[in-house]
């Protein structure tokens, strides 16, 4: 899922999910039931018949997430999935990601929220200017020069330690 997901503006969330489901060879009542489940999981039921172009940023983000989970993928690649979500939706997504990982899916997500990464990641990598400069677990990251520390410590150390506005 990209950080700015594209939704066909004149389609509704249900139609969008139906298309993505069909792409992954889901059909008929089984697909419709699954769409209902995902709509409910992302609190989208009341928006399911509205055009995507009329939805708010956060609601569109939830439609894109429902799209990503719809076909039980083995690999989930999410770019800044929390952007635009309210705290409840963020909590719901964290639980869904944990459940997907527990069920055997690989979840790769990029985020600027260090707390989120520290909370849910099993493996973390730190990218600076597109290069991987440290990797490990969030509690014990190792840089290329061999320094170790938590994700936050290494990040602020590499960033120069000066918080930016």
């Amino acid at each position, binding site marked *: 899922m990209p950080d700015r997901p594209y939704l066909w503006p004149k*389609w509704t969330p249900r139609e969008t999910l139906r298309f993505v489901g069909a792409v992954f060879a889901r059909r008929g009542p089984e697909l419709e039931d699954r769409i209902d489940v995902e709509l409910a999981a992302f609190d989208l039921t009341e928006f399911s018949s509205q055009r995507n172009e009329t939805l708010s940023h956060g609601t569109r983000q939830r439609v894109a997430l429902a799209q990503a989970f719809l076909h039980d993928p083995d690999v989930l690649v999410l770019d800044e999935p929390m952007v635009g979500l309210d705290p409840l939706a963020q909590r719901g997504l964290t639980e869904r990601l944990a459940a997907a990982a527990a069920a055997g899916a690989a979840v790769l997500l990029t985020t600027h929220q260090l707390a989120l990464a520290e909370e849910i990641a099993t493996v973390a990598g730190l990218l600076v200017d597109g290069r991987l400069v440290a990797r490990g677990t969030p509690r014990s990251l190792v840089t290329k020069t061999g320094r170790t520390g938590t994700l936050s410590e290494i990040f602020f150390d590499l960033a120069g330690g000066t918080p930016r506005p």
Partner: protein
Amino acid sequence: MNRVFRANTLRASGRVLLAGDARGRLAAMAGLFALLMFLGLEMAGLEGALRASRAALGELREIRPAFLLERLLAGAFAAALILGFLGSLTTAIGTLFLSEELAALSTLPFPHRRLVLRQALLTLVLASAPTLLLAAPALLVAAGAGGRPILAFFSGVLPLAGVILLAGAAGIAAALLFVRVVPPRRARLLAAFLSATGLAVALLGFRAARPERLLDPLEALSVVTRLGTAPLSPPGLNPAAWAARAATRGLFGDAGGLLPGAALFLSGLAAFLLVPRALWRLHLHVFRDARPGVARAAGEKHRGPEARSLATVLLRAEAASLLRDASTPAQLGSLAAVFLLDLMNVRLLPGADASARDLVAGLQTGLSLFLVSALSLRFAYPSVSLDGRAALVLRALPLDPRRQLLARWAVRALPATGIALALTGASLLVLRPTGATSAVALLAALVGGLAIPALHVGLGGVFPRYDAPNAVTVALSTGGVLALVFSTGLSLLATVAVSDDLRLLLGALLKMHLPAWPFITAFLISATAAAITPLALAASSLTTRDIAIG
């Protein structure tokens, strides 16, 4: 795409027509009605022209209608080929490299070759729509006029489809190669500029051929006789000439015309299918590299000029916004062609008759101001609406809306006044009317050039459309039409104020004496009111209006 995609798209189209808001439904219905009107008018015009030419050619036995028709069709197919190529080039850069939909589809498990083919088809549909709109009624009329309508219809359709497919294939291939060397956004600007320049050259070429000669019956007869008696050279490798020959044979009832038409169609289809097959890997490579998100920040060290005053900052920002508008270069190209056409007209103005010179001086002044109106409708009227979401930010700033509006006006009034004075001045140099007429004409050009952009900026602020996708949509709204009506009225008033002869004519019709000064005064007062009132209304409306409903 799959069945669900097609069903969704169909439902979405129906939703716009049937279940959208009242304004959307009205716009869709009005669009459909305008389309049907256009098709009906074109068919009626062609039917009339066909009847008239049949009657005329019945008198001119030495002329071979097939020669005339083939020459006419060769020109039409050549135009379709060139316009199709330029249209596909510009459209393909958007559909193949800047489409958010393609980016979304490319994350789904579709073969990339299929996605490229889909975007190529989309490009073809979008780029060939104007050609099809013009050609479809002509085909129907031509097919209905002969003894074998089905044969005639297919003899026209097959070569036309062949030409459209060939042009589309060439345009799409050129777009792929173009973006290989130039980033997509810049490539689209360059392609749009190239298209506008092509159109401008075509317009100038048409004008330079002096089509007004055909208004002289003797000259027209000589041209028609020459074209209708000399046989055409063999088509060689020119697809437009092949298409014209095939269509002409079919339209005259010769079934042999179907074969070259079908061959052209199959060649076009093969070329069109070959492009995605041959270039999809190149597209994938360039598409990944050229996504707008990965563009590097340019010129980090370039700080730009320092801010000296708020007025300077506003003016610079307004000029930059105007020049960076993606469609500005293309539309300026077309408008430059109109400007040059007007200047070329000056060479044909009457030289001897003083009365005619005075009349034409008035008309040229009006024409200059009308051109300024057209420019303003595109570049001044939408200026407030194009703020879009930034309107919310602008509203939150401690910045007087009057200053914003004045900056918008100043940036647009300068070139508008320059154009009005240049066109009027050039006409006056050739016509050499009386000193008084010249003075009034220059005054009208100066005042009109300043007032019309103000009128358009002001009305654009009174009727903003922050949700509109582009400047043309804003300009074609009800407020835009109102602005054009007012500015055209000013142009007409200027015409009457400048020309003594026109007032004499008008006075004779109204049976009264019409001196110059009331018209000059009325023009000056109207221009001032038309400039100030909408700007003042807009300034007040911008501070109070709910931006969300704009």
